[in-house]
C-alpha cells in the first residue's frame, strides 16, 4: 500500500510529510499511537489482512466503483470532458466506507472491542457505525450539536445501526469540537478503544493509515480512465475538508507529472466575509488535533471557527499531506463558495440525474471553471465523493423546494 510517486510517499518515522504532520498529543496517547502504528505496519504487509480488506471492499462496499461520463454537465465546462469517479455508489453512499472497513479490521487486530469516531456531515459516523455493526464492535460517535441538527437523517441512521451518538455542545459545536471530545474519550478509554479517525488529519499514524485505506479510489480510477480514454486525465479534482477523498484519488496520480491535481476548499460566504473553511488558501501553519498543518487561526494561535454550507467541509484544519502537496506545488488548492457549490449541485442533478453530496459539489464547481480554462480537448476526472441524500434538508432550504 506504499506510495508510488516522488511526492506523498510514506511519511518519515515521526510521521512527517516535510515539516507537516508529527504528533502533538498528551503523552498518555503515545503508546496507543505506537501500538496502532505497529499493528498497521504488520497488517499492511500481511497478505491475509489485505485479502480480507479487499474481500470486504468488493463484497460489502461495492468496489470497484464505476466511472461515469457526464456530457450534458460538461457542456457548461467549455466542452472539456468531465468524468466522475462514483464513490457515491458505495455502500453507505460515500468514500468513507473504504477507510472504516480497513480500520475496523485493524481494531480487531488491536484486540479492542470498542470504536469511537467523530463526524461532521455524518458520513464517517454512518460508515463507522456500519462497520462496527458488521464486525460486532461497540460504537460511540461524537458529533457537534449543530451538525446533529443539520444532519438529523444521518443521526437516525447511526442509531439504527446500533451506535450511540453523543452531541457535542462545546465551542462551535461542529466537527472540530467533536474531534476534541473524541480525543478526550480516547485518553480515558484507550485500553479498550480504538479511535477510528475519519480523515487524513490527526497525529501520526492516522494521516498515513487513512490515506492508504482511501487510495483504492485513485488506484481504480487511474486504471479505469486509461481504459476509457486511452490515457491519463489532464486534471484530477476533489473537494478538501480534512482531505481524505482528495488524497484518496490524488495519490495514485502523484507520480504522473502531466496530471494536474486540484483541491477545492469551501469558500463559504467568501474570503472577505470571514465565513469560510479556506484552510490551505487562507490559513497559516500551526498545530491542530495533534498534527502540524495549515490551520485557520488568529495571530495568537487560537482556532478560528470555519463555515461551509457543507458540514463535511466545515473544518479549520486539513491533513498534513495536503499541506505538503500545497507547499511543494504538486497540488493546487482553490476556494468554492456555497453558492457556486449549490449551483453545481443543482446542475448535476438536472443534467445527469445524479444528486451529489454538497462536499463533492465543490469539486464539481471547480471542474466547471477548470474545464473552461483547459479547453475542449481536456479530460477532467472528478471524485464524486458521496451522494446527496443526506444533504436534502440543506438543499430544500437553499432552493426553497
Amino acid at each position, binding site marked *: 500500500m506504499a506510495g508510488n510517486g516522488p511526492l506523498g510517499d510514506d511519511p518519515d518515522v515521526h510521521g512527517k510529510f516535510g515539516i507537516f504532520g508529527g504528533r502533538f498529543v498528551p503523552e498518555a496517547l503515545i503508546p496507543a499511537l505506537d501500538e496502532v502504528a505497529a499493528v498497521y505496519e504488520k497488517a499492511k504487509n500481511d497478505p491475509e489482512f489485505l485479502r480480507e480488506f479487499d474481500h470486504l471492499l468488493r463484497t460489502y462496499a461495492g468496489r470497484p466503483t464505476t466511472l461515469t461520463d457526464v456530457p450534458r454537465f460538461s457542456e457548461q465546462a467549455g466542452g472539456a470532458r468531465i468524468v466522475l469517479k462514483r464513490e457515491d455508489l458505495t455502500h453507505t453512499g460515500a468514500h468513507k466506507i473504504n477507510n472504516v472497513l480497513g480500520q475496523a479490521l485493524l481494531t480487531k487486530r488491536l484486540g479492542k472491542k470498542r470504536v469511537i469516531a467523530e463526524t461532521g456531515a455524518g458520513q464517517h459516523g454512518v460508515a463507522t457505525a456500519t462497520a462496527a455493526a458488521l464486525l460486532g464492535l461497540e460504537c460511540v460517535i461524537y458529533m457537534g450539536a449543530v451538525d446533529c441538527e443539520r444532519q438529523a437523517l444521518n443521526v437516525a441512521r447511526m442509531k439504527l445501526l446500533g451506535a450511540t451518538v453523543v452531541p457535542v455542545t462545546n465551542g462551535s459545536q461542529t466537527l472540530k469540537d467533536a474531534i476534541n471530545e473524541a480525543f478526550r474519550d480516547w485518553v*480515558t478509554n484507550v485500553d479498550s478503544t480504538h479511535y477510528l479517525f475519519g480523515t487524513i488529519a490527526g497525529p501520526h499514524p492516522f494521516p498515513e493509515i487513512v490515506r492508504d485505506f482511501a487510495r483504492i479510489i485513485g488506484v481504480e480510477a487511474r486504471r479505469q480512465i486509461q481504459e476509457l480514454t486511452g490515457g491519463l486525465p489532464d486534471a484530477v479534482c476533489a473537494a478538501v475538508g480534512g482531505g481524505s477523498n482528495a488524497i484518496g484519488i490524488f495519490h495514485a496520480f502523484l507520480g504522473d507529472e502531466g496530471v494536474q491535481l486540484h483541491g477545492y476548499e469551501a469558500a463559504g460566504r467568501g474570503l472577505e466575509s470571514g465565513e469560510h473553511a479556506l484552510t490551505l488558501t487562507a490559513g497559516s501553519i500551526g498545530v491542530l488535533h495533534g498534527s502540524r498543518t495549515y490551520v485557520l487561526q488568529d495571530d495568537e494561535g487560537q482556532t478560528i471557527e470555519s463555515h461551509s454550507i457543507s458540514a463535511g467541509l466545515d473544518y479549520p484544519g486539513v491533513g498534513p499531506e495536503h499541506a505538503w502537496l500545497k507547499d511543494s506545488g504538486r497540488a493546487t488548492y482553490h476556494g468554492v463558495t456555497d453558492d457556486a457549490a449549490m449551483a453545481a449541485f443543482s446542475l448535476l442533478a438536472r443534467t445527469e440525474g445524479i444528486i451529489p453530496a454538497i462536499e463533492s459539489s465543490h469539486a464539481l464547481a471547480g471542474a466547471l471553471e477548470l474545464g473552461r480554462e483547459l479547453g475542449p480537448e481536456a479530460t477532467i476526472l472528478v471524485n464524486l465523493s458521496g451522494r446527496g441524500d443526506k444533504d436534502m434538508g440543506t438543499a430544500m432550504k437553499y432552493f426553497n423546494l
Partner: protein
Amino acid sequence: MTTLQTVFAKAKADNRAALVGYLPAGFPSKGGDVAAAAALVEAGCDVIEIGLPYSDPLMDGPTIQDAVHRSLVNGTRIADVLRTVEGVAATGAATLVMTYWNPIDKYGAERFARDLADAGGVGTITPDLTPEESEPWRAASASAGIDTVFLVAPSSTEQRIKAVVDCCTGFVYAASLMGVTGARESVNVAAEGLVERTRAHTDLPVCVGLGVGTGAQAAEVAAYADGVIVGSAFIRRILDASDEAEGRASIATLARDMASGVRR
C-alpha cells in the same frame, strides 16, 4: 524570584510535598485571576500554574473547559497571560505557564520564552508537546533561563518515561490516570507506581496531577510524590461561588486543607 529549585529544596527540607495550584489566566476575570492566585499562595500553595486559555484544550475536562471558554470570551490574550504571571510572581510563588503548544508556536518560541522570563515566570508545562517535537522549545527555554516540564502517564513505557524526563527541568508532571483533568472521588492507584517508575530515571522532583480534589487526597499523594497539583477542584469552587470574593474565600479554604494535607 522564587525558583522551582528553591521551592522543592525547601519542601524537602520541611519533609513535605509542595502544593501546586492551577488557574487559567483571565478567570474568573481579568485582574480577578491574580487575586484568586494570590489567595491560593496566601493559603499555602508553593507553585502556581497559570493556564494559557486555548480554543481546543484536548486534555481538559468540562470544568477547565468551561473556565477557559469564559476567559477567551472575555478577550484574554497572551499579553494578559504575561501580566497575570507578573502579578502572581510578585506574590513570591514560583509561577509557571501551562499551555498547549500551538499558542507558543504561533507567538514564536524564543519570543514567548523571553517574555515569560521577563514577566517573572519560571517555566512552562506543555501537555501536548512530545519529546520528539520539543527541541526548539527546550532550546528557547534554556536560553531564556526558564524550566520545561513535560508529562508522563500511566501508559508510558520505560523508554518513553526516560525520553520525557530527559526533556524536563524543574520537575516531572506525572498524570495520575488515563483521562482528562477534573477532580475525582479517588486518586488512581496507578499514580504511585508511575512516580516510582519515573524516579528510577531521574532525580528531578515528581509531581502528581489529575484528579486531586481534597486535603485527604493531597495527603495520600504527598506520601509518595514531591508535589501535588490541583486545578479543577479550585475552579469548580470559583464557578459555584456567587461572586469573586466568595470564590476566593472558598478556594483559600480548600487550599489550606490541601496545604495541611501535604504536611501530614
